[in-house]
């Protein structure tokens, strides 16, 4: 998203067309370029006591992750937002896992 400067001076961003001028920062997606984003999601787990030892166990070993790319034209979810892309991804940690 372009961050226009307020009246084109200093470090403050302007919002309205009467004050926006220039570009303080550009976080838009550039044409002909690939932009990567990575998200980390912690599986739900709990630490259980057994025989005087602590054992970490997964509560869920499968997750369904919904990925939505939103275009939020006015900077907030005000009813004008548009979902550009949405998909679901199933991931899992199905394995014998004991916290060591």
């Amino acid at each position, binding site marked *: 998203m372009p961050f226009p400067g307020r009246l084109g001076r200093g470090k403050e961003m302007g919002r309205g067309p*009467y004050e926006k001028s220039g570009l303080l920062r550009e976080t838009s997606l550039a044409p002909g370029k690939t932009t990567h984003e990575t998200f980390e999601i912690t599986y739900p787990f709990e630490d259980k006591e057994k025989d005087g030892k602590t054992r970490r166990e997964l509560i869920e070993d499968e997750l369904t992750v919904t990925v939505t790319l939103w275009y939020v034209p006015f900077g907030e979810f005000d009813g004008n937002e548009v979902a550009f892309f949405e998909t679901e991804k199933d991931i899992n940690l199905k394995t014998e896992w004991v916290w060591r």
Partner: protein
Amino acid sequence: MKRAFIAGIAAFAGAALMAFNAYSEGGPKPEPLPKAKTIAELAERYDSERCAECHEDIYDEWQYSLHSHSILGSPRTAPTIITAIENGIKLFPYSGVKNDEDLTVEHLMICAKCHLPQLDEATDDVAREIVATIKGWQQAYRDGDTDKAEKLEETIASLNIGCTVCHQKVAIIHKWADGYPQYDTVYGSSEGDHEDEELVKMAEAPAIGESIFCGQCHGLGPNFELDHPSQCATLYGSYLFAYVAHGGSETCQECHMEKSGLGHDMQSYKDEAMIDMALDVKVEGRSIFWRKNKAEGVVPIGIIDVSMYNKAGHVIPDG
């Protein structure tokens, strides 16, 4: 020898003139039309319904585009014009505006340069009428007076980027080279007679199929020609310097009108076809046990990698 040289110069001059005149039938700068004194007068001057009789399909397409309600907007534009007046123009010490009565066409042109370029053919009373109409429309909504709100909304929407804005008023960009648009001519891709009482001729607009044509409004950044530059759109800037500069060669019209199949229903982020044409998104997922640190130990995490390839001819988002 001298005669041959003169003949040569004459032939060259003739060829040079033909080179320009072959592309358009612009002409001398015409006398300005009488100023429109009301919204209704201005709307009638640029009413696209007159074109619908023969160009029904194009008119229908256009009606869905934001061009058909360029002052009303999504409808965020009209309220933003009021914000610009209340939070900007009225507060600037040298704008000369303290109250709505002080507003002139010049003040509104920071928005109207693109949202209603024909406002320069109207009196200052029209500028004030536009502001009063938008404020009345907002108040009617606050009062729950739907009938009044709808009526005023219709009035606001009557001011728009209609057929003759692009195909007449701003049809010729380089007026010294190609001439000024003539009041009796509609500009597009054809030449000849045109069945209309006022627009009786058709002529080619030299750049109507080029990106620069759209760049007149979807621009480069601050409009420095204004006493108080405004900046809504920077799209033509990103097209030139982030797309063409890196090998891109398609025009705005090729993507937004032809490949999209939308024609004069020019759309952007709210349209499925344009969204499909804008980005390729890939999502990969995997899971690992992350030995994070001593305090938190091993943490089971899923990792979602998202890659977004922008295949448009400009940054996303932009306008």
